């Protein structure tokens, strides 16, 4: 196997930064393959080389450049990269992309194209699991994607039914059908989202479990193809099927369940001859667990596993791709303490999570022991509407779950992000909720208690008074006329209802 010297990164935001950091520590150069909208970002400033592979907006927007296989490969080759890390989302689970990379002499840092096809294609994976006698949820996975067939199948499975992108993950293109009357609209909407996010409109249907917990196992196949699991995470706190808070290890597993599920995770990965990092997802309800899917990539929430085990999964990925990582029987990995991750999104929690865009002002992350901040954007960078609304991930570790929760709340309270609204107040409310504290939350937790976001606690007149006071003080502290710009006429002649609809953001 050839030595890797320069790694191309087909991704953006915090995960691009994460990969660059691992490369730097291994003494490798990096090439960031980016869109024109991401030139004001931390990864752009950090990468050894960068190549713009397309525009985020304008007439050429029809195919998102991060989904363009040819553009990514051509740029990686032009920059002299010998390997490529796909991150997560975008092309990370695209078997054709992995295959094209290898064909063009780029080492794909992830599982083989064949393993992605076997395990990553949810339908293929389910057949594989079925043959092996592993527990699955009732579903429709057929090739006939006509709307009438999908509607019939949804009825057969019995509502509630979930619609998912066959090629996807991370909540994109997922819809929940509760009533047959809304089924057609929701299926069509899921197909459109799937097409725009993953380049394929194929969807499948599945019975929705009402009180389930989302449990997943980190698996890893070393250079020799030997698969081990690196314990579990719980990601039950999800909104519209997108994870918000994740933790390791799951507070819901008995020793016996952990052993059984871990074994099954390894079995399924071994069936796919899995090399590199992956995740086997389960739903757990009333002590029954069901295999959900395999994500053939690094997960957004990988840091919580890293924190409880003291490992670096991205480095392990690169070393495995180089043929340089082999599990040793001497390494006994036991999780220690508890880790929690919160995803900080640019959205307004007081307006049911409306996306918030704009230029970041002050950004301050309160450093401390076992507090970790993964972020892709800094002061002066702009959060655009073209991509994912995640600004950062905050990860904390402590000796037990309760202390980790307390540490997370404190860390979030001390974080400063100006310029866009964030979901931080929402995260704090969730962390403080009895059902979360007692670890009883299911995947319906958010829907049940936080469906409409938060109600603002502060009254507008009060906030205005504070704003006046603070503004006056800021003016005198900075010795400049802070209100000067306010004397100018309002530039936006169209009065937007949102422009000044600012409460406690």
């Amino acid at each position: 196997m050839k030595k890797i010297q320069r790694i191309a990164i087909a991704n953006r935001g915090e995960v691009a930064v994460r990969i660059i950091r691992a490369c730097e520590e291994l003494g490798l150069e990096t090439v960031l393959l980016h869109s024109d909208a991401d030139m004001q970002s931390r990864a752009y400033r950090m990468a050894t080389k960068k190549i713009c592979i397309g525009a985020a907006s304008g007439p050429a927007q029809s195919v998102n450049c991060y989904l363009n296989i040819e553009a990514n490969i051509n740029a990686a080759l032009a920059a002299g990269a010998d390997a490529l890390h796909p991150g997560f989302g975008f092309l990370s689970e695209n078997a054709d992309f992995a295959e094209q990379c290898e064909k063009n002499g780029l080492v794909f840092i992830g599982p083989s194209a064949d393993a992605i096809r076997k395990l990553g294609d949810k339908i293929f994976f389910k057949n594989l699991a079925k043959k092996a006698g592993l527990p699955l949820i009732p579903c429709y996975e057929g090739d006939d994607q006509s709307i009438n067939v999908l509607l019939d199948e949804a009825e057969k499975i019995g509502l509630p039914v979930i619609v998912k992108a066959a090629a996807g993950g991370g909540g994109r293109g997922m819809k929940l059908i509760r009533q047959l009357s809304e089924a057609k609209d929701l299926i069509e909407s899921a197909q459109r989202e799937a097409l725009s996010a993953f380049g394929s409109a194929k969807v499948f249907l599945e019975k929705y479990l009402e009180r389930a917990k989302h449990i997943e196992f980190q698996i890893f196949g070393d250079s020799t193809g030997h698969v081990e699991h690196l314990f579990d995470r719980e990601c039950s706190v999800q909104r519209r099927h997108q994870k918000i808070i994740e933790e390791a290890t799951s507070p819901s597993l008995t020793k016996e369940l952990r052993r059984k599920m871990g074994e099954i995770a390894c079995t399924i990965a071994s069936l796919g001859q899995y090399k590199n990092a992956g995740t086997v997802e389960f739903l757990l309800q009333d002590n029954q667990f069901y295999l959900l899917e395999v994500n053939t990539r690094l997960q957004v929430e990988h840091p919580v596993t890293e924190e409880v085990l003291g490992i670096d999964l991205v480095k392990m990925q690169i070393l495995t791709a180089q043929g340089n990582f082999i599990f040793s029987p001497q390494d006994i990995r036991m999780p220690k303490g508890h880790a929690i991750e919160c995803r900080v999104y640019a959205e307004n929690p007081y307006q049911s999570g409306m996306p918030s865009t704009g230029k970041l002002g002050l950004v301050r992350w309160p450093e401390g022991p076992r507090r970790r901040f993964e972020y892709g954007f800094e002061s002066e960078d702009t959060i655009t509407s073209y991509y994912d609304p995640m600004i950062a991930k905050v990860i904390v570790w402590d000796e037990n779950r309760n202390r980790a929760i307390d540490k997370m709340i404190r860390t979030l309270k001390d974080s400063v992000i100006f310029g866009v609204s964030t979901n931080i107040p929402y995260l704090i409310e969730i962390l403080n909720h009895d059902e979360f504290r007692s670890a009883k939350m299911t995947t319906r937790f958010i829907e049940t208690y936080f469906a409409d976001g938060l109600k603002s606690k502060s009254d507008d007149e009060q906030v205005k008074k504070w704003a006046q006071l603070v503004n006056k003080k800021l003016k005198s502290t900075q010795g400049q006329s802070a209100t000067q710009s306010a004397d100018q006429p309002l530039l936006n002649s169209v009065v937007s209802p949102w422009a000044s609809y600012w409460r406690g953001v």
Partner: protein
Amino acid sequence: MKNNFSVIIDGQEKTVTAEIIDKKIWFKLDAQTYSWDLIDLAEGNYQSNYKKTKSSSKSPDKILAPMPGKVIKIFVSENQTVSKGDTLLVMEAMKMEYTLKADIDSTVEKIFSKVGEQVTLGYLLIQLKNDKQG
């Protein structure tokens, strides 16, 4: 740091972090972040901008873009009658879809956007005509 200072609120000294960004003041007080339009704080402008615009956002005959993003599907055409709860239009931003529905029984008077169009926050997408007002 210039952005950190203390203020007296209700007789108590509090540490505040503050910054002006794009005609808004952003500040953090008691672990909460707030922002407010500066124009609304300027002297001689006592009427709350917030109150003024809040009422306009409540006029159900104007379907405004609740966020910057792309129009991906329009379900109605001009002169079509719609009922309360009918889906009018789907927008996409940050790869998520948002569905805008009619809040009133009405007629579609004018459509100001096209499928595929990128629109700004607050953009008037559809003008409805309230049937009851005739």
